[in-house]
């Protein structure tokens, strides 16, 4: 192999879950093959009911260097947490 296949990130939605969760990454020639590989690598033990794959190159990520300007300012603003509301018992998933 003269050239490695590009990297894809894999997201699974578990049976009882609501969200797709990042579970790992893999190499594939294109998105369709990535989906096959994800099925074979990450759902062998009945983990998921839905798979997303995304080319790793298409993900724009925040950098660790920007951690403070990005996240520190929200650390001391308790009033942004909606802790003053009563949540009714029959409202799930909050």
């Amino acid at each position, binding site marked *: *192999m003269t050239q490695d*296949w590009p990297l894809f990130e894999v997201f*699974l*939605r*578990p*049976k*009882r*879950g*609501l*969200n797709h*969760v990042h*579970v790992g990454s*893999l*190499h*594939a*020639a294109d998105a*369709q*093959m990535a989906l*096959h*590989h994800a*099925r*074979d*690598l*990450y759902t*062998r*033990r*009945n*983990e*998921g009911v839905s798979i997303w794959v995304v080319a790793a190159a298409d993900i724009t990520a925040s950098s660790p260097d920007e951690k403070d300007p990005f996240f520190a300012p929200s650390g001391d603003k308790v009033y942004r947490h909606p802790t003053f509301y009563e949540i009714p018992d029959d409202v799930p*998933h909050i």
Partner: protein
Amino acid sequence: MSTDDNPYESLADEHGEDHRWAFGTGFVDPLEGIDTSIPAGVDADALAAQCLALGDDALIYSHRLQQWVTRMPELEEETALANIALDLLGQARMLLARAGTIVGRSEDELAFFRAEHEFRNVRFVERLDRDFAELVGRLLIFATWRLALFEQLAGSADPVLAAIAAKGGKELTYHRDYAAQWVVRLGDGTDESKRRMQAGLEVIWPLVDELFAEVDRAEADVVLDTVFATAGLKRPDRAALAPVDRRTGRDGVHTEAMGYVLAELQSVARAHPEATW
């Protein structure tokens, strides 16, 4: 966000009743807990012969696929192939166990202590594929044929065989999908990949006729021709491998390759006949 969002957390508790969700978790009999009595009106000998033939197909072919593990071009493909080989091994276990309930032998006895002429697999599954193109070509044809067969058997008068066929059909649909994707990629790829894909099909083709002695070919041909057309490949025009004295794999007459499979498959069990693992 609930804790259920982690796909791996549900593994521990989701499978309570269904202990067959993965092989190797401690159960011995693949048909444990299933009513294996033969329904009235079913010819037990014919049923045993049918299960034996289909079980042998899966057992021998699974072994040939397993021999490719550690030789695949990419790690991801390796897992894919191991999954497929394991699916077929699972089918072999259930089918041999079903045959065994009728002829009074265990699945291990049937797999490890029969001689070559007692195996009833088609000759198509015996050969070791020389390259990856041949491997995916053979897998495409095998899965297409076996899927057609299992769709018929899902209506079998024997509820055990019908259930095995219904479960296996889902597995085979994926195997066919996986193989078709690669046949198209290689056929529609570079000059080199196209040449080798075509060459792989030419090698396999003489063994294809034998498959369709027991199931209608028209439906399978539509699938294969569609894949070949998409891949830009020619349907091979090769004479079928002749029977030997009118007998083929289903009659216990095999190709030279079969002895090598059995030697490797059976040697450990025969060297240590009482061993458990």
